[in-house]
């Protein structure tokens, strides 16, 4: 792989750090040090990003709602996260008397661990994947599926009805949306023929006619899959308009009701890091990861492109939060099973058609036709005249 000096500056820096160790300590220690450097870099970058985005989010929301947002601490209120962090650290940590102490304590720890682990397999730039695993995409989903259990631990360990209700809601929507989330990834995996994130990035590195980047979002199935993936990611990270599990007006703060001080901050952090991870995966799968949008822009370092695309997606997250009201639980569920899932399967079929019609303009038209047909059929079928009456069940009484 090529790459100029600025592009590879972090790789060189790591190699230099490791060269200080080689020869003085045994090989396994060098390996551990190499991993530790990756972990430290990941944590450093993403915790800074978390601090930045928390203040930027409040600023942007303020702008949307025609007010100032935080502007007291430091220039433009930029030191607000520092003040918030100190506040969270010195707050009293209250554990309910009837809570399950161990489970209550472990839940925030594990949820943060799961969120941070998912960051490890995303390629941030040329040669900049922290942990290269052959089944990287699978690893991402395996770890994020474990976070459902931790949400449950938080809800159950608190011994509080609001916590429990919040956890039930969270798990219901996370399980429902995990399906479209994973199935929309399948077309990309199928077309590339690999679960390795680096190979998926390489497959998007060329240009059609010398200027249109070969990103999957520019194919009909890719565009549809990207939208579905983005919405599912929004639900998975419990963000507005899908923040039913922690809807303040209904169940206080859902599974986080009984957490205070730094434990609450840990949940907050895990939520944001989960958001970064899902957006990062969306950038990797559909938006060409660290590749430049135009060939002559390749001189700009790859990691800058990645973080530029990531920040655009994060901005959309904040924008949606400022714009849309909260949906109802049954609306979310209906949307998942009646619309998202069939559309996700359609993407899979459309990608297969695109592949077998030669991946050219004919495939483009055919797959666009299939997706449009299914979309219109669904929109007609789902247009039912709702009767409002108490729900009755046939067997489960």
């Amino acid at each position, binding site marked *: 792989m090529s790459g100029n000096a600025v592009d590879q500056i972090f790789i060189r820096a790591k190699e230099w750090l490791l060269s200080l160790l080689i020869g003085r300590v045994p090989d*396994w220690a060098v390996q551990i040090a190499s991993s530790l450097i990756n972990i430290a870099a990941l944590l450093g970058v993403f915790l800074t990003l978390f601090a930045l985005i928390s203040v930027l989010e409040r600023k942007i929301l303020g702008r949307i709602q025609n007010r100032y947002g935080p502007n007291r601490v430091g220039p433009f209120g930029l030191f607000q996260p520092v003040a918030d962090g100190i506040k969270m650290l010195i707050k009293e940590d209250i554990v309910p008397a009837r809570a*399950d102490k161990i*489970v209550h304590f472990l839940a925030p720890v594990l949820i943060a661990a799961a969120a941070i682990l998912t960051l490890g397999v995303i390629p941030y730039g040329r040669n900049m994947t922290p942990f290269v*695993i*052959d*089944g990287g995409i*699978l*690893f991402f*989903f*395996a*770890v994020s*599926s*474990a976070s*459902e*259990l931790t949400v*449950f*631990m938080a809800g*159950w360990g608190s011994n509080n009805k609001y916590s429990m209700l919040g956890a039930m809601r969270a*798990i219901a929507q996370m*399980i429902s949306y*995990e399906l479209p989330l994973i199935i929309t990834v399948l077309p990309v995996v199928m077309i590339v*023929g*690999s*679960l390795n994130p680096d190979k998926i990035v390489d497959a998007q590195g060329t240009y059609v006619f010398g200027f249109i980047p070969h990103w999957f979002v520019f194919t009909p199935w890719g565009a549809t899959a990207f939208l579905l993936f983005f919405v599912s990611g929004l639900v998975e990270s419990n963000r507005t308009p899908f923040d039913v599990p922690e809807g303040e007006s209904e169940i206080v703060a859902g599974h986080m009701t009984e957490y205070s001080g730094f434990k609450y901050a840990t949940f907050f952090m895990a939520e944001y890091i989960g958001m970064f991870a899902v957006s990062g995966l969306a950038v990797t799968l559909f938006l060409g990861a660290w590749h430049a949008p135009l060939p002559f822009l390749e001189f700009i370092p790859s990691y800058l492109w990645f973080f530029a695309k990531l920040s655009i997606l994060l901005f959309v997250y904040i924008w949606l939060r400022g714009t849309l009201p909260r949906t109802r639980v049954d609306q979310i569920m209906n949307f998942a099973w009646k619309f998202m899932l069939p559309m996700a399967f359609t993407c899979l079929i459309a990608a297969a058609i695109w592949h077998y019609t030669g991946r050219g303009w004919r495939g483009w038209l055919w797959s666009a036709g299939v997706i449009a047909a299914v979309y219109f059929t669904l929109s007609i079928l789902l247009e039912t005249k709702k009767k409002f009456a108490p*729900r*009755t*069940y*046939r*067997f*489960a009484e």
Partner: protein
Amino acid sequence: MSAVTFAIIAILTLAAALAVATLQKLMHAALSFAVMFLGISAFFFLLGAEFVGLVQVFVYIGAVAVLIVFTVLLTRHDQEKTRGFNWSGVVVALAVFGGLIWAITKTKLLQSAPRPIEPITVHRIGELLMTSYVWPVLCVGVLLTAALIGALILVMEDKGQ
């Protein structure tokens, strides 16, 4: 290095398994179950079967453990009730242990050296599933679809009445 890792994982997995059997609260037992699954997936990683290890985490922790936890929550159980010591359980456990020991000691060890194992990649697994093992895969697919439809029928809204 590998032996030490094996020992650590084995101790953790066995401890979690023991906790599942002995803990008083059902929820704690269910959560220890998840830890045990994690230990087993660590064994798969140690053996170089990356894909199986990841699927183990995915299916057993992401789905089965959540299902168990849900079931524990939705069914009625008395936390206060203390159970007496179950002697029949000891007999069954001893019988199983004895049977396993007998089977292991009777088994002849293979004398030939193991063949060199080619690395199992995700690519190769996919290829095999779509060629040699395509019928089992399809059967599992049909079975899971049937289960899904069954679950839907159970919770379907009744329009007739």
